[in-house]
């Protein structure tokens, strides 16, 4: 669905217990279904409606999105460092297609 791979910012390292910021961006028009195209016909709704972030398999954050989220959805949120491992991010659109990316973190 996305033309460019999603981008995420996760620190490469963190101290155990530290709370740090994560930022994510994905390219997507977030078509609302309320807009008309040049032919006068309504452009069908096509949005990303779900976003999840897990850390070593445990959910940190999930978002259920509607049409009022801007094009190219952006999320910034926090996580607490526990163990070294992987953050996984997933975006799912109205067709049920999912785009994923991941980042590793070393916790000392």
């Amino acid at each position, binding site marked *: 669905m996305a033309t460019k791979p999603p981008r995420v910012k996760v620190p490469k390292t963190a101290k155990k217990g530290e709370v740090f910021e994560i930022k994510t961006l994905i390219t997507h028009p977030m078509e609302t279904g309320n807009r008309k195209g040049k032919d006068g016909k309504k452009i069908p709704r096509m949005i990303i409606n779900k976003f999840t972030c897990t850390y070593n398999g445990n959910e940190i954050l999930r978002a259920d*999105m509607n049409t009022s989220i801007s094009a190219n959805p952006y999320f910034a949120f*926090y996580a607490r460092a526990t163990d070294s491992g992987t953050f996984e991010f997933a975006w799912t659109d109205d067709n049920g297609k999912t785009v994923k990316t991941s980042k590793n973190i070393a916790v000392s």
Partner: protein
Amino acid sequence: TPEEVATALAKLTGGVTPQSGKITLKLPEIAENGASVPVTLIVDSPMTADNYVKQIHLLAEGNPTPEVVSFYLTPAAGKADISTRMRLGQTQKVVAAAVMSDGSVYSTSKEVKVTIGGCGG
């Protein structure tokens, strides 16, 4: 409309009467670009296993659909502080509500102006 937002919110929070406090909604007073308005939701919570923020809901009174986004958190977030960007078609009140792990609900709102712009000092 305010009624649609109230109905949607009641559905999302199980009908618990919201209290004021604990939740902060950061939005510009005047939108620079109605297609992309930065918004930050912060809830005062220790985010421990027995005391954390379960859900944060964002709603808009003047958009075609009142629900904007619902966030579901776990204590592993460490901090309930989430930013995104939203659409605002016209001047309106934006409402945010947090559901805590004990089931209590806190809400707040902010008016955002969408203007034609121009002029200045």
